[in-house]
Every structure is written in C-alpha cells, then in structure tokens.
C-alpha cells in the first residue's frame, strides 16, 4: 500500500505517574485513511497513550502532532473539535439519555447555534436542529440501531451500546477515530461483525482508525500497521505478518521460554 500523508504523529511521548513511567519515549506515525493498532500486554500503557492523545492527560515530554499542528496541552474539547474522537474500554455512554440524544451530543463539534437563538427558535436554529436530527437518524441506521432512537442508552444490550459509542464518536465527523478495545466482551459472531464494520467504515468514508485491541484475530485481520507496547516502551512495529513472528513480541506475550518455539496463536 502506498503510504499517504501522516495524520497523527507522536514524537518521543513520555507520561509519568509519580515514579511510574506509563508511556516511555513512544513514537508512532499514523498515515491518513489507514487502520492501525496498538497492542501489548495488560498495563502496557496503551490506554494511557489514548488518554494523552485525547487530552485527558498532559504529556510530560515529547509532542503529538495532528494534521501537522501540535495538540500538546490542548483541552479535550479543543482536540475533539480538531477532529479526534474516541470510544472507551469500559463503555461510557450518557446512560440516562436516549440513544438519539447520545448521538446529538456527539455532534457537538459541528453545531454552532447559540442558546439565545434556541430560546426564540430562530429559523437558523430550527434548521440546524432539524439537520442534526436527520443526521443522527442516519447514523443510527448506519450502525444498525434503527428504531431504537428513544431507548435509554443504559437499556441497550451490550453489543448495541458498543455500536452506539462508535456512532456517538462518528457524529462529530472526526478525521481520526480512536477505538479502545471495540470488541471487548463480545462473542465471536459479534466480534466478526464489528471487525467487518470497522473495515467498511474506513473503506466507505476514508476515516483514519487507531485501535487498541486484545483479540489477535481482529488485530491481525484488519490492521495495516501494528505497534507493540510493553512497559510503556515500543518493542516492535510493522505489518501483521512481521509482528506475528517477532521474537520480542512473542516474549512479551508468552514469556522467554515460549519465544524460542512459537508464533502468536491466531
């Protein structure tokens, strides 16, 4: 595949919590319209890196560039408006709001109507609301939640909640979508569906997707590029086949003894 322009570029990122270095001198390039994965054992610093990118944490050293501009030290809402939106490892929907309301909140970066305009329901305010509603319904159909618009997010089945989280992130029209373990807790059939969905999403919209995932079938199946983290450090990087046979990766996952004789089990 021809490498296109770099969308997200992390340069020597360091994040410390007291004495613990959660992310240590980590660099990664995410090309535009690619699907990339970050993998690594539990506690390797994957989610911490996500939190650095989305602005929850301020990074201690290094820098992160998005679309060529640094996003270091920006607040989460500013980063969201620039086009990075995400989902969460443990689903974090607005549980007591309806499905459609969740998506409408997700559309926040695109809406401009002020509160005074909404007091008087000015024509422009009404038009924006109608368009937002229509788009929210489209997204609802897109992720397969047709007809569930008025259901409370908390009352959705688990798989639907995962889908709704993705829809909420997509609602803001991001350039980069960060998915934190999108198939966690899913059965094999749901996992296969979700994998297919992510691939189609990229193919249809050209969005860039960066995901954290434990399920090797998903990772090896859809990633164009994989970065492996262990103890906050990058230990390998490359195409799925390369990662699969990398002795360092096998050691990190299975221990030193296994490294001599195995590959990562698919």
């Amino acid at each position, binding site marked *: 595949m021809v490498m296109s322009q770099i969308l997200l570029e992390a340069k020597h990122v360091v994040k410390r919590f007291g004495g613990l270095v959660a992310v240590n001198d980590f660099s990664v390039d995410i090309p535009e319209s690619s699907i990339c994965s970050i993998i690594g054992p539990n506690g390797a610093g994957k989610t911490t890196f996500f939190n650095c990118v*989305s*602005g*929850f944490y301020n990074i201690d050293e290094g820098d992160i560039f998005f679309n060529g501009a640094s996003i270091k030290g920006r*607040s*989460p*809402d500013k*980063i*969201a*408006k620039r086009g990075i*939106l*995400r989902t*969460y490892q443990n689903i*974090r929907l*607005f*549980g*007591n*709001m309806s499905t459609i*309301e969740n998506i*409408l*909140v*997700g559309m*926040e*970066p695109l*809406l401009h*109507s002020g*509160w005074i305009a*909404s*007091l008087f*329901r000015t024509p422009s*305010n009404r038009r924006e*609301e109608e368009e937002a509603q229509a788009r929210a319904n489209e997204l609802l*159909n*897109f*992720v*397969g*939640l*047709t007809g569930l618009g008025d259901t*409370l997010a*908390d*009352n959705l089945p688990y*798989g*639907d909640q995962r*889908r709704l989280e993705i829809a*909420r*992130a997509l609602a*803001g029209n991001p350039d980069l979508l960060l998915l934190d373990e999108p198939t966690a807790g899913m059965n094999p059939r749901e996992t296969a*569906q*979700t994998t*297919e*969905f992510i691939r*189609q*999403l990229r193919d249809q919209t050209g969005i860039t997707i960066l995901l954290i995932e434990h399920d090797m079938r998903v990772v090896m199946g859809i990633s164009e590029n994989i970065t492996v983290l262990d103890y906050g450090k990058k230990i390998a990087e490359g195409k799925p086949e390369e990662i699969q046979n990398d002795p360092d990766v096998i050691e990190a996952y299975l221990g030193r003894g296994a490294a001599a004789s195995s590959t990562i089990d698919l």
Partner: protein
Amino acid sequence: MSQSPIGRAVRYGLLAGLIAASVSAIGMVETFNERDIITGFLTLGQLLLYSTSIIAGYLAVRTKDNEQLNAGPALLNGFVAGLLTAVPVIILILLTVAFPTIRNSLVNVSPALINALTFGQGPYAGSLILAAVMAVLGLAGAAFHILPEKVEKPLFNGVMATLLVGLFSEVLINVFRPFPRQIVRIFFGTKGIQPLIAIIIFVAAVLITIWWEARGEQRFARRRASLTEEDKQRNRRITLIASAVLVLAAPWILGLYLTEVMDVVGIFIIMGLGLNIVVGFAGLLDLGYVAFFAIGAYMMGLLTSTGELGIAGMNFWMALPISVLAATTAGIILGIPVLRMRGDYLAIVTLAFGEIIRVLAASDLLKGAIGGAQGILKIGKPEILSFVFIQPQHFYYLILAGIALAWFVSSRLRDARLGRRWMALREDEDVAEAQGINLVSTKLLAFAIGASFSGLAGAIFASRLSSIFPHSFNLLISINVLCLVIVGGIGSLPGVVLGAFVLVGMPELLREFAEYRLLLYGALLILTMLVRPEGLWPSQITRRELHADAEEAAREGPQHEDIHPLVG
C-alpha cells in the same frame, strides 16, 4: 427468608408505637389537637396519634409475596399490632407518674398532653382505654386490608376525601367567604367540617368511586377512544384556556390571606425552576443558592429604597433587570472558581458562598451601605402609570409572569443544544468534554441562568415586603429550594411547582406544621426516597432511569435473538 406473621405484627406494632410516643413527646399531638378536622369529633392530633395503630394493623397483615392470610390470623395480627402500638405510649404516660419532674427534660410532655392521651380518665384507667382503642384500630386496619378490593377502594377514597376536606377546611372557609356567614356555618365549624357534612362527603366519595369502578371508567375510556384527533386537540385547547382563566382568577377567589400564601409559593417556584437548571439539568449540587436570592433582593432594595440607604431612587422596572443582572454576575463569579470541582467539594464551596453572603449582609462592616442587621427599609413598589402594586393580588400577577418566564426559558433550553450539553455534563463530565463540549461555558451558563431566576425571585421578594433583613436569607432557604426540587422530581418542571406547593404551601396553610417544618421535610424526603425515588412528578428521563429494570425485562423476551445488521 420467611418471617412468621405474628413477628411482623410485633415489629410493626412496636415501631408504630415508638412513632406515636415520639410525636406525643415532642408536642406534635398537642399542637395538632388545636386543629379540628371534624368539628367536635376528630382533631389533627388524634388523627396523627391513632393513624399509627391503623397503619400498623394494616401493614402487619401484608405479606411480602402477597399471599392472603386467612381472616382469623389476619385479624389477630392486626389486634396484636394495634395493642403493641399502645405500649410505648403507655410507658410515656406511666413515666410521668413515676417521675413527675420529667418535664424538666421533656418540656412538651405537659399535663394537657397526658390528659388527652388518657381520655381524662387518669393514668391507669386511661392507659387501659388507650390500649383498647388502639387494639380496635389495629383490628380495623387489618380488617381493611383483608376486604376485597371492590370494598377497600371506595372506603379508602371516602376516608381520604373526608380527611382532606376537613384538613383544609380553613382554606375552604376562606374561599366561601363571599357567602353569608350562616350558610358557611352549616358546612364548617369554627375549625373543621361539621359532622353531618363529613358523613355526606364520605358517602358521596364512596358512591362516586363505586360508580366509577363499575361503569364510569369504561364509559370514559370508550368516549375517549371515539374522539377524533381534532376533538382531542379542541379538548386540549379548552382545558388549557380553562386552567389559564382559573389561574388568572385565583387571587380573587382565594382572598387576601391565601393569595399571600400563593405569592410565597410562587417565589419559591421561580427559585426552584432556577435551581432545577443547576442541579436537575446540569447535575451541579449548589447549596448556596440563597446567595443569589439575597443579591437580587439587596440590589432591588438599594436601587429603589426611598429610605436613607437608597442610592438611586429608581423605579421598580428599571431596578429589576439590574438586580437580575447582579445575581447573574454573582453566579458567574461563583462559577469560575468551582469549575474544576465536583460532587461533594462543589456542594461545600457553594454552601460556604451562601453563608459568606449572609454574614456580609449582617456584618457591621457594610452597615453603612446595606444596613447590617437592620436591613433595608422603604423599598419601592412596582408601578404602571399611576397604578401601584400594593396588594398580594397585584404581586400574584407579577410573580405569575416571573414563573411563566422562568418556565419558558427552562423548557426551551432543556430541549435545545444547551440542554443536551447540560445533561451530558451531568452524566459524565470527562466524556462530555472529549466529545467537544466546552465545560467552562456550559457550567457557567448553568450557574448564571440559575442565579438569574433566583435574583428575579429576590427582587420581587424585596419589593413585595418593602423591607429586607439578613436573617431572611439563611441556609434554610437553600435547603428548602433543594428539597422541593428533589421531592417534586429532579429535572422536572411540573415537579418544581408541585414540590413548592407541598413543601412551602402546606406549612403555610397548616400553621401547626410550621413549627415542625424541618421534621416534615425530613420525613417527606425519606418517604419520597423510599416510595417514589423519582419524585412526585418526575421528568420523563428519571422515570425511565428508575424503572429501567422493568423495561429491560420487557425488552428481553421477544427481542432476545434478533441480529442487528452492522452496516445499514
């Protein structure tokens, strides 16, 4: 875990008895005895005391899995529960015999109380009578429970209707004041309703319920079903116009005193609607809400007072927007330092802010400017041309306009983008921010708009009373407003109105309650949380939230195996 029925009877009986003894010991029974419900027959105090054994008897028969006890054991249970209700009360009576000095520590255990408890028959004979009466009432409670529903419901409605009319007879006497005295006397005693009228109300309520259950409900449903969409719309319009006329005519029907009560309730409704935005919509627990009320009131006072503290001698209408603006600014000023605070910390800081404002208002430091403990006097009244708002009736309309404005703003914002941002903030602040919501502006808008309603209420409050004093702005106001928002149903606009009527209106109407206002609040809050955690008139959202389990169970069944296509 199975529990022997008689064990329940003992438990409920003693529990109810403890409640009966406590309300007696704190003087509630004696105070409430001054209000007749049915003239010469039943006082509020007696109702309070004896309802404990009826309820104990009723509850003692109720089993968890709703299996019916046989009549014999059920009645026995009720009897035991009722009898045991008397035990703690009798202990209280005997204590006064054993320790005549008990009044030194329990000041409310007066001879008059003991006399009332023992039917004037002396401690020993009286105790026996009390035990017998309570046992019979417990029996009645149990009997009531084992009656078939067809009988139970009309009886219940009959009793409730009679008690309600009796309880609010003072209000009704006020409403009927244009009629000749002799006619009113037929219906009402000096306090309470006449016994004959009570019986008529009881019978009427029973008959209406029986008719409704047997025929009316079906007929009504059938008529409703046959209505066209157009008819429904017309009915809705008629209802709307009728209620508007009623609301507008209310002060002239209710009379001076009741209108005054309505004014107080209305001011609390405006504040409640404001706090509902902060707490209900945005989920920011603000315990210092009274501060903005005070700022609105003081600003109105300073700007319009013709006394020595007045600084501008403005008229009310000029001062009103300035007062509201001052409160709004204060809301933003409070909002900025607490932007990063959540939950408990936010509650404590806002609490302190409320106290600071009150202490400042009362302090000698600012005495020269805002009057210290002497407050501000001679505050201006609203005028339109040469018409001056003086009477409670005039202020009623002003307050009504305030409520309408606050309601309009609340409902429009709730359904708009800002409302969604507030709710997202309430649900999960971090995620809301990561979705592109600017926390600073969203929170500040909640504080500012909430504060502006409170400032509006304060400004009207000051003008209505003509004078304000720092002690009117104590912590209790904040607690009152918060309670009415919670009891009414957090996040719900009609809930605020209902909550204000129950928590502010009731103690105003039933003066005896005023002394026990905090006890009433506590009891009501606990009761609401236990029986209706979503509040009296919940918003759509909270109702769904608290009954999610049932909904989910309903969804589970048929839809369990359907597969949602991932890409539509």
